[in-house]
């Protein structure tokens, strides 16, 4: 029986022309779990942790999460969950609902009990640009772990602050990447195009 233990297969170097930079772009995408065509999406898997596209069921689309400010999606993070027998990864995506209305409030209700996949754009793309678009929740889904609204909060100014979490994912990071940044951006944008009916 083969083990799933991984082995290191390359150097951990320093690319002085592509040093890490912090930050996430202001527009992300959130997709309802059930709206994903999993058969077609799995066919787009081109490596252990790379998908060249996320395909949606007919008539479905992803939705944009727009942020403003100096630190969009602040407190988004990934961390190892070390276990005695196996180590997994927990991932958090945090954002502020920049609008408030009765309609938006129903969206918060949906977030509170639904399952989702989120795609964010890292400002640091990596030398081969494969790290630009990071997918959260494609293994175990993103679910709400925190939601709060404080009228006099200095950062959120009364808006809903939401944290979505994927627990016990097998992979540290998963990326949406196809050929180069431009093509990957097209794949990212294609998720939120108006759906075919």
């Amino acid at each position, binding site marked *: 029986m083969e083990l799933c233990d991984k082995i290191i297969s390359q150097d951990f170097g320093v690319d002085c022309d592509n040093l890490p930079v912090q930050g996430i772009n202001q527009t992300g995408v959130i997709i309802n779990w059930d709206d994903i065509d999993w058969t077609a999406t799995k066919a787009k898997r*081109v490596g252990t942790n790379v998908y060249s596209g996320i395909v949606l069921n007919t008539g479905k689309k992803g939705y944009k999460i727009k942020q403003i400010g100096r630190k969009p999606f602040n407190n988004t993070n990934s961390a190892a969950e070390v276990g005695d027998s196996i180590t997994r990864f927990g991932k958090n995506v945090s954002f502020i609902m920049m609008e408030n209305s009765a309609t938006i409030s129903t969206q918060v209700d949906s977030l509170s009990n639904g399952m989702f996949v989120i795609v964010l754009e890292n400002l640091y793309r990596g030398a081969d640009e494969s790290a630009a678009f990071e997918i959260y929740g494609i293994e175990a889904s993103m679910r709400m772990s925190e939601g709060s609204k404080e009228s006099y909060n200095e950062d959120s100014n009364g808006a809903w602050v939401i944290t979505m979490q994927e627990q016990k994912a097998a992979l540290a990071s998963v990326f949406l990447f196809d050929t180069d*940044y431009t093509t990957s951006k097209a794949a990212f944008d294609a*998720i939120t195009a108006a759906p*075919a009916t």
Partner: protein
Amino acid sequence: MEFQEIKDKVKDLESKIEKLSKEDKELINEMYQELFNTSVKNCNCRNVYVDSFFQIRKYMKENDKKRTFFLKNGVLVHWNGGIYSNLNLTDEVATDYLKKYPSNTQDFSKYPADFFEEKEGEDLDPKTDAVDEKTDKDEDLDTKTKKTGKDNKKK
């Protein structure tokens, strides 16, 4: 709604564009669905119907028939050096693509029902023409030289 009928209705709406009635907006939505297989964006944006009308008018100027192939959201088609999504896919590209990769119909939300019926002089048998596109792209990703993106960018 036939293509010529849409063309005539677009012409009628030109003079009313600054003050659209509820019926005009419904008509724009209907034409939009005919051409783009989707509804006008549902938002409180003030100019959404005017913008949609201009999209329709542009499409009518640049094309002579309605599209019949539509991709699912999230799908990109790599074909002949170009990258196509639902925003820029044409029937010509879709036809050539599906002739070469007939097993990729799962990427399409809509295509003509009779597309794979054998027509005189054409060989559309999936058994003879099936090619594993995933293998081709996997090879590209494994052994790729870095592309600038200019080659693949499609307006």
